[in-house]
């Protein structure tokens, strides 16, 4: 009796999962389908769920516009630079907070750093514009975005790295000291390898955010630097949006994050859970 009950429950729950999966995949499916349609087909009164005629050439067409490739490259530059910087600063601060600043001072500092992420970006939009405008490199530059994204990524990196460092036992570092390693060498030999999965998951989270950011990029940059979310709205013909190109490009832009996720997912899972379990 319990056995049948269990089977029923299992089926129901799996059905639920399946429904959600369909819900998740449908828009993506439609994206794919739309990306393969010719222009005339996309805005029909009754949309087709399967292309009547295939235009894989759409994908090549995106890159006919040199701006497309540049935008992907710009996005790569900004996201990798920012991730590296956020991770570096976050690791520094996180380590210091985890090892040496446990008291009230440390907690307050940690909260101060974290609170920056809570800031609505909107609030600082205008003054940010003026701030970067006044600098020698101006608003429309890689540096402005890289620095700007720090405001959101660095606190996250700091907080998570702090948690990960707290998880690595001090004793291992102490054993290394007694072996004769200075704190710096001990860090690289003992602490860093242990915290690597965590670092990777932090890096991925920061990277995805930087890769996908639209608002600031749109408002601050546009010509010198154009990340891909800013470039996408340019796929228009007169007043009509070329949805097939928009979808195609979006799918192409999904490839880096998805690939990274597939490759790094073990680290992400281990890293996220490590940090979060003791968070």
């Amino acid at each position, binding site marked *: 009796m319990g056995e049948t009950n269990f089977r029923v429950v299992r089926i129901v729950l799996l059905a639920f999962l399946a429904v959600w999966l369909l819900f998740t995949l449908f828009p993506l499916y439609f994206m794919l389908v739309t990306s393969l349609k010719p222009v005339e087909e996309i805005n029909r009164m009754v949309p087709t769920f399967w292309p009547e005629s295939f235009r894989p050439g759409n994908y090549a067409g995106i890159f006919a516009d040199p701006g497309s490739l540049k935008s992907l490259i710009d996005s790569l530059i900004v996201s990798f630079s920012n991730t590296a910087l956020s991770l570096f600063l976050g690791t520094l601060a996180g380590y210091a907070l985890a090892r040496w600043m446990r008291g009230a001072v440390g907690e307050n500092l940690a909260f101060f750093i974290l609170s920056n992420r809570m800031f609505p970006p909107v609030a600082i939009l205008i003054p940010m514009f003026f701030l970067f405008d006044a600098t020698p490199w101006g608003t429309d530059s890689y540096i402005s975005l890289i620095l700007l994204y720090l*405001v959101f990524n660095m606190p996250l990196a700091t907080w998570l790295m702090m948690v990960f460092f707290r998880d690595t036992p001090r004793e291992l570092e102490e054993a290394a000291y007694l072996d004769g390693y200075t704190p710096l060498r001990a860090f690289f030999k003992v602490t860093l390898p242990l915290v690597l999965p965590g670092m990777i998951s932090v890096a991925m989270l920061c990277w995805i955010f930087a890769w996908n950011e639209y608002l600031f990029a749109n408002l601050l940059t546009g010509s010198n630097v154009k990340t891909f979310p800013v470039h996408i709205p340019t796929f228009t013909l007169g007043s009509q949006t070329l949805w097939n190109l928009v979808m195609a490009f979006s799918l192409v*832009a999904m490839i880096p994050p998805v690939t990274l996720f597939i490759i790094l997912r073990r680290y992400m*899972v281990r890293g996220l859970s490590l940090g*979060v379990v003791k968070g």
Partner: protein
Amino acid sequence: MSTQAVPGDAAADADDARAFAGRPYPDWFKAKGGGRSRLVSWWVPTVMVGLPILVIVCIVIYPTVWMFYHAFQNTNMMSLFTGNWSPVGWANFATVLSSDRFHASLTHLAIYLTFGACLQVLLGTALALILYEFVRSNVLKTVLLILLVLPMMLPPSIVGVLWKFLLQANNGAVNHLFIALGFLDPTQRIEWLDTDLALWSLTMADTWQWTALPLLIVYSGRVSLPPAIYEAARVDGASRWLVMRRLTLPMLREIIAIAFIIRFMDAYKFVDKVYVMTSGGPAQSSELPVFIAFQKGIREFQIGEAAAYAIIIFVFAAILIVLFLQYLKRVLKAQGL
């Protein structure tokens, strides 16, 4: 295997041959003043924490100060350039707090937080656990995980645009899908982006995208739970439901809370989708407070008011988050973590 003679007060001395409880602290201890001693010079941690803080401060301080300053002025875009503004005290704040538009947006925010952020965490948790417990093959688990996480990989702005495209009343895919499935007559159309439904559509799009994050976090957490406990439970013959309720969920409580905080922190300040999908409309029916701040600042050029909005929002959210963190700390202490 020892027995003591008449206990009396001999046992009270127990192991305290020279207990400090009885003696005054020695001088050297009093002079010391407590605290741990470190192995590295004092300036090392200072620099390590100081450098990032310095970076933040440089980038954020100026805009923050600027914003606080102008919240008390009557600045607008024009006067910004002519340098022509004057202090108005709390007037901006008053305007904001009394505006109907703001109140409406608060309602919208409440709806969004409940059916957006909260729902995402609940759904994400449920899905993560179902995926972990009930899907047998490991390969399938991985494949499904990747598929379920895909929405997170798109820029929120694209997601907004995508859903706008899908939810078009006349030739949107969703409506026609419903027709094809028989939920609607061929002549019926759901006005997804109309004043009634705009906010809900927005929420739906957001949930579509972000349920994946709590899902990923809780799934990761579940993976890392020690298997020994589950073995013990199985040996004891506990039902799966009991195991879930009494073992899994309590252990995951912290993780779920963290997922919630992350979503909450991001949710109340999200504006990308609103901007591209509904522009707060139609007729401000899907406006969220942060979006209004944005509009006021960038579109309507009421800088002072926009600044006041931002501050109010931030303070409000900060209070909520701090309260939640305190609650979380208390819960964790009770659990002995």
